[in-house]
């Protein structure tokens, strides 16, 4: 894994400052049918290759970030603020 990760708020920081939560999934509406919630809570694509993850900058700005990472090589790619990314998607 990259030793240094480029946080959009804090700049280049050691990866140990971050906590990796897991796949950056879209949260269903609270009244979505149970099979949608079952899929969101329990099922995973679990890809080998590049995918997007939620990272928390626990020892830094404490913002949630969306990080593109390759699960076969551990290379990290684009890092963006999660809230900003979500806002950009919903207002697009």
């Amino acid at each position: 894994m990259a030793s240094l990760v480029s946080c959009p708020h804090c700049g280049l920081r050691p990866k140990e400052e971050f906590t990796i939560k897991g796949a950056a999934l879209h949260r269903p509406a609270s009244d979505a049918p149970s099979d949608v919630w079952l899929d969101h809570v329990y099922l995973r694509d679990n890809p080998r290759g590049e995918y997007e993850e939620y990272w928390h900058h626990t020892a830094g700005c404490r913002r949630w970030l969306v990080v593109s990472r390759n699960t076969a090589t551990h290379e990290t790619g684009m890092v963006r603020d999660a809230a900003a990314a979500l806002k950009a998607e919903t207002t697009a």
Partner: protein
Amino acid sequence: MRYSALAILKNALRGNRDWRPAWRMPDPKPHYDVIIVGGGGHGLATAYYLAKEFGIRNVAVIEKGYLGSGNVGRNTTIIRSNYLLPGNNPFYEFSLKLWEGLEQDFNFNAMVSQRGVLNLYHSDAQRDAYTRRGNAMRLHGVDAELLDRAAVREMVPFLDYENARFPVMGGLLQRRGGTVRHDGVAWGYGRGADSLGVDIIQHCEVTGIRRENGRVTGVDTTRGFIGCSKLGLAAAGNSSRVAEMAGLKLPIESHVLQAFVSEGLKPFIDGVVTYGAGHFYISQSDKGGLVFGGDIDGYNSYAQRGNLATVEHVAEAGKAMIPALSRIRVLRSWGGIMDMSMDGSPIIDRTDLDNLYLNAGWCYGGFKATPASGYCFAHLLAHNAPHPTATAFRLDRFARGLMIDERGAGAQPNLH
């Protein structure tokens, strides 16, 4: 050919020219009754029991690498049946009983060593939890002993007993637990299955699963299409990738677990010891190296290697338990791909496709389960019904609220 002391003597006198290869390298046939995807411990054990116990020998095991190159060759070799929950305990005890007869059964030295597994506890509450676990084991007819501090000290004198934060107060001991030579398991089951007529097709990667009218007709591979009547998936960390070829999305994330071996040392750790104030487990191999491991790294990975932060974390836990480890040199480290299920317990079940069967979700505890996993998966493939010890390992248990929450952390994904 049968391995025996006499065979060694006879062959030595003949210049060792007559040893046969332990298994054939056949070309795939156009069709098999059963194809098993995954030539690791569980896949090979399944093929072995299909042939030996259930009389189904027209079987192929398809392995993308070389036999045993996955997790079966990468684990810390521990076997035990000290599980708490009724959905788990009988299964792991069934596995331990199979371990006890295995070497005679498959005529191969797998170095099954029942040297004992000792789980340390460091507080009254933890003692109570281990008492409960020990009693649960005994209710299922499984051996368990609760040792106090003095008894543990006699067995394992070099622990950090006086640690101010986490003193060693005692331990739960399963004497019948221990270690097994992991490669020997792969080779023994492989040789056994092959000798019963199973084709082990190595360096053959499944690239697609063909379906017609809701049934699997066979697999596309890097060595061509191979037809089958039944398809069983035993691909461990690669389960999601293979299942996706059949349109299935699994309750599994693939995570890296690292393991380590030290330089060779004179024997001083006689059994398996696990830490109660952190995730750490250690034993000593017959070559003298300490074999140990700890937590998973904590992120999805198919890389079969992990991060230095985890190496440090594991070393810290080890040193907290056994201060003498601080001066020991680590010789080698490696990683595997753990198929982490959403409740930490495995899946041995049929799927929505009538002739597609799934064996997955072993997290970091699959090695000890190898014999029972193979036997129960073979039972399911042969009879279309679960073995009595594996009835809880359902794929749909997450939808039905029947998670097997062995770790007591609550029914939550993101468990890992």
